[in-house]
């Protein structure tokens, strides 16, 4: 059939001929496009946003992706948000020196089969010396009114974490007692009880049933009533209600409410860049060194060989771990350390034995005899011959480096700031995703890592076919 | 010398399937061999002579397109045997092969003695000790010392390896021994030694050889019969004396002309053109593009091997007057 291709272009051509190679290359192409667009559209802001806890406030925590609804029988809720303009406002002032009453009423329908994950009410007000008194009531479709809480607003932007606030919870428990129920106060969950049908099961999240009210039917909506008593004519408040759902976006959210899609999209360029830079540099250095040693022989060769041996004996991973830990590295310094640790390796040895063989070939001898200089022969004749093998090595080691970065993240040694796939997977693991079943948190980045690795592997597979045709006897 | 015909080949055909063509390596070859006789199969590289050997001993690659013909060995048509029977009854027992020893034909991790004795142990179920003993004997016959049975192939020189390979082929005392270029990779002195060995063995053990080579002069040393092969077909089959003195086929003439001679001043000639592509052989007589005597009929019809001047066979329109008419 054919001798191995010489040079880069020939290699690329041969590569796209096979099905496997084509698949691999197309996956990579898709990834590169995503990468370029993400970097172009979002820029580095993503990284700052990723680490800013306040940027994600409106997202639900640990929500599954929206499309995963098909796996669940119950209709899971999406986040319902009532903005300040959605509230019906009525203000009443008796006179200039008297108190001002502000009423905010929010209305929404709730037709899901499952309860919200959290409920939060954000109140912002403008007031002077005297802080307003705020009373919150929850009006259910079945007509019942639940008194939630009556609090003094501590500062201009306060949030009353309805689902988490203990006072609200106590009031909800009281409400349940008033209905003639006997719930176990320790098991009552506010956001469940507020939405649950009034029956014995109301006090237990596992047995409660949702009191549905959807806009299609004749049912009444849910209403939240915020009544503020303020001290000044110019003072006012406004409110925002977030009823957090259990579904969000394309990739769900993590335990810090972050939209995983963003982290994952950003992870693509990082993964690619990391993998490519480390594998290209180490392969290049190793190949050139191996070739240099074999071609020039003598002390050069001995030295390179001995250093390679030392490198091979040093336990790579423990050293990498140690260095990462001591120096608290960012992902790019990890990259540098990685490259330094990979300057010598197995590829040096195999390139060396290849070049030793090529050296004996007649056309090299001929070149020497007509006066071509040693460096010239090396670059023009020898390096193009071994390039395909170096290339194959690059391709098959990219996934290894991507996984290495993920492994470091798992050990807690990864970059503290930049979101990478490895970081997401490791956060998922330590956040208990495998133990509590937040499958999307682990699986989506894992699938992406896997697909990327597989793409490179497929390319490596077709490389193998090209470089070793005799092994493909069919 | 026993004049019984022990090998009779008729219309042996072996085609290979390549990615987009069919290679007609052996195209209807027929000849016969008598006991104690040596047939030399001569031709250029790529004419199909090695394929012929493979066809006889049924070492076929995976991409076989056609494999047919009749091979009568000691009365049985071995082509009709299935693979297992062929392996058990024919291989090495009736027909063995001597490869180029410089080829990697000896297993590097087994000792010589074990490899030579192996056919006895496997085929004849001879006990190992006895088999090794016989191996030592036959190795001795080929001129190798006793301790060779403990050696590994890489410890032997080229000539020694070739002797070992010959011994290995002879251990079951087969009817026919095919020798595929047994001396091509050896230096001239060793070559001479091996040729002498082959001659001695032939005499002592009354062996029948098929001696495959590209070297005409070498063939002349050993053979009784010479078959000239060209592009997958036999051009001429004659007894040795006549072939060299009076070659019939134009190709044979050209071959002889290209051999340098020691005693005269005649310059060796070369044959113009190149051997044809076996996947697309020329129509009619395959030699016609290079033949100085080519006629119109040569381009159209394939000449058949026909008797000429007694026992000689030649496939050429120059001699086949009936076919031409």
């Amino acid at each position, binding site marked *: 059939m054919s001798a191995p291709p010489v040079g880069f272009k020939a290699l690329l051509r041969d590569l796209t001929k096979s099905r496997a190679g084509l698949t691999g290359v197309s996956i990579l192409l898709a990834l590169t496009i995503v990468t370029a667009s993400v970097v172009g559209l979002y820029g580095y802001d993503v990284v700052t946003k990723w680490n800013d806890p306040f940027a994600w406030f409106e997202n639900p925590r640990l929500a599954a992706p929206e499309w995963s609804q098909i796996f669940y029988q119950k209709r899971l809720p999406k986040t319902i948000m009532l903005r300040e303009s959605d509230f019906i406002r009525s203000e009443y002032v008796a006179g200039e020196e008297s108190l001002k009453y502000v009423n905010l009423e929010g209305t929404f329908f709730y037709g899901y089969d499952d309860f919200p994950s959290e409920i939060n009410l954000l109140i912002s007000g403008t007031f002077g010396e005297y802080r307003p008194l705020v009373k919150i009531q929850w009006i259910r479709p079945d007509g019942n009114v639940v008194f939630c809480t009556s609090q003094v607003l501590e500062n201009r932007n306060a949030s009353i974490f309805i689902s988490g606030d203990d006072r609200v919870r106590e009031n909800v428990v009281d409400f349940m007692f008033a209905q003639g129920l006997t719930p176990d106060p320790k098991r009552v969950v506010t956001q469940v009880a507020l939405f649950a049908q009034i029956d014995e099961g109301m006090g237990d999240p596992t047995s409660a049933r949702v009191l549905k009210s959807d806009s299609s039917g004749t049912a009444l909506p849910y209403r939240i009533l915020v009544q503020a008593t303020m001290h000044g004519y110019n003072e006012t408040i406004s409110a925002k209600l977030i009823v957090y759902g259990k579904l969000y976006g394309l990739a769900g959210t993590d335990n810090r409410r972050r939209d995983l899609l963003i982290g994952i999209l950003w992870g693509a360029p990082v993964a690619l860049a990391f993998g490519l830079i480390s594998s290209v540099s180490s392969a290049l250095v190793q190949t050139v060194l191996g070739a240099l040693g074999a071609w020039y022989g003598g002390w050069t060769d001995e030295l390179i060989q*001995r250093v390679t*041996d*030392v490198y*091979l*004996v040093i*336990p790579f*991973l*423990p*050293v990498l*771990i*140690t*260095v990462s*830990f*001591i*120096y608290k590295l960012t992902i790019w310094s990890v990259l540098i350390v990685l490259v330094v640790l990979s300057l010598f390796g197995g590829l040096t040895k195999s390139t060396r034995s290849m070049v030793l063989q090529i050296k004996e070939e007649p056309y090299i001898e001929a070149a020497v005899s007509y006066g071509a200089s040693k460096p010239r022969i090396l670059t023009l004749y020898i390096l193009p011959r071994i390039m395909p093998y170096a290339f194959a090595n690059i391709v098959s080691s990219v996934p290894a480096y991507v*996984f290495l970065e*993920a*492994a470091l993240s*798992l*050990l*807690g040694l990864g970059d503290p700031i930049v979101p990478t796939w490895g970081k997401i997977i490791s956060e998922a*693991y330590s956040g208990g*995703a*495998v*133990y*509590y*079943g937040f*499958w999307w948190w*682990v*699986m989506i980045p*894992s699938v992406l890592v896997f697909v990327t*690795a*597989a793409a490179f*592997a*497929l390319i*490596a*597979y077709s490389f*193998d076919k090209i470089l*070793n045709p*005799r*092994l493909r*006897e069919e | 010398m026993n004049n019984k015909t022990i090998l009779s080949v008729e219309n042996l055909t072996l085609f290979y399937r390549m990615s987009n063509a069919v290679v007609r390596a052996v195209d209807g070859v027929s000849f016969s061999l008598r006991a104690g006789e040596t047939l030399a199969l001569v031709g250029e590289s790529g004419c199909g002579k090695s394929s012929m050997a493979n066809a006889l*001993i049924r*070492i076929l690659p995976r991409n076989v397109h056609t494999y047919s013909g009749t091979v009568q060995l000691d009365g049985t048509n071995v082509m009709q045997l299935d693979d297992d029977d062929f*392996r058990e009854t024919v*291989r*090495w027992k009736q027909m*063995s*092969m001597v*490869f180029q020893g410089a080829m*990697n*034909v*000896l*297993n*590097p*991790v087994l000792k010589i003695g074990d490899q030579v004795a*192996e056919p006895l142990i*496997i085929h004849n179920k001879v006990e190992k000790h006895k088999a090794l003993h016989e191996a030592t004997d036959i190795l001795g016959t080929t001129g190798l010392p006793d301790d060779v049975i403990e050696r590994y192939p*890489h410890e032997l020189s080229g000539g020694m390896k070739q002797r070992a390979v010959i011994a*290995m082929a002879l251990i079951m005392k087969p009817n026919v021994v095919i020798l595929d270029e047994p001396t091509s990779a050896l230096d001239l002195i060793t070559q001479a030694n091996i040729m002498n060995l082959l001659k001695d063995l032939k005499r002592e053990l009354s062996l029948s050889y098929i001696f495959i080579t590209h070297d005409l002069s070498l063939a002349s040393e050993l053979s009784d019969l010479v078959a000239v092969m060209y592009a997958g077909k036999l051009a001429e089959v004659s007894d040795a004396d006549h072939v060299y003195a009076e070659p019939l086929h134009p190709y044979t003439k050209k071959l002889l002309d290209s051999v340098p001679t020691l005693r005269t001043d005649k310059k060796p000639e070369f044959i113009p053109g190149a051997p044809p592509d076996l996947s697309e052989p020329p129509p009619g007589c395959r030699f016609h593009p290079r033949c100085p005597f080519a006629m119109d009929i040569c381009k159209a019809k394939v000449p058949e091997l026909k008797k000429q001047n007694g026992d000689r066979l030649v496939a050429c329109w120059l001699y086949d007057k009936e076919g031409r008419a």
Partner: protein
Amino acid sequence: MPADGLLYMSSKMLLKRAAVLAVTLVVAMYVTILVANGGGYIDNLILSELRQEAGYLYSRNPLFRTLPIEEQNRLIEERVQLSMKARGLDKPFIVRSFIYLVDALTLNLGRALFIRSAGGSSSVRDIIFERLPQTVLLFSTGTVLYIAIGIYLGLVMTKNIGGKFDRGMTMFAIVASVIPPWFIGIISILIFVFYLRLFPFGGMLSVPPPADPLSYALDILYHMVLPLFSWVITGFPYWAYITRNILVQISQEDFVMAARAKGLPDNNVMTDYILRPGLPPIVTNSALTLITSWMGAIITETVFEWPGVGGLMNAAISRLDAPVVIGITVIYGYLLVATVLILDAAYALLDPRIRVSKK
């Protein structure tokens, strides 16, 4: 040349090789020690930690707070110096690094700074060896398993070159070869433990461990299933692939064709003419495999909370316990060198061409 002549040649070669490896080991050890101690950087960290510790200790003493500031600082420093001396940290780093090196090479691994073994010992050797059997148990079993499976499948692939199994397995092998075992580990925990509830979450034994030996052994086995599964499934495909490649290359050699011409049955050809000459490169490859498997162990053990040396490494690093980190690295280094030596010897035994090559 009689057999003992052969042995003489091989042992001389082996000695030379061992000498070279020893030098390599020493250099590698020293580099590791330098790195593991952060070139002295760790000293500063430990110093500040000790200072904090001393400060905290003293601040609980009401009398201490009555002393003037200089007196307080002096006492703290004194205490810090004492702690340092107790841990042998008072000599300058360069001197210490050579002491470490000599100790490392003689396997005198010293005392851990903070970690203790289950029995309370602070000897690094005790700490490591306490954990070593578990690692050996899990990863040796796994590695042997997947090498065996891999070689067997490689044989099957060779017998049916170009067939569906061959091509499918090759593709599977190349893809699986880039996936590390801990990755499969995480996913298999999700699937088999969370969803299917078939296996435990991690660790080696249930709590409380069963009393009788049989149940105890079975309990360990039960906990080994998932880590073994991850280890084996990522290991055997590549092995099958390289075995296949080696064997296929050999099967195209002339002596295999000659063996068939000799009329040998397929089984004999496979065993004596393909497998046997293939053993040397297969054995060399297992050297590389074993070496990389010790490494992969660290993360895999972490994911499965397996109480072995890998998990210990993780803990030692978080705890900044340099002697333990160095100790483990030394052991790794020795294991590597030992493996390489053993495999060189095995290679020489298997391939007669190597033995007499230095003539």
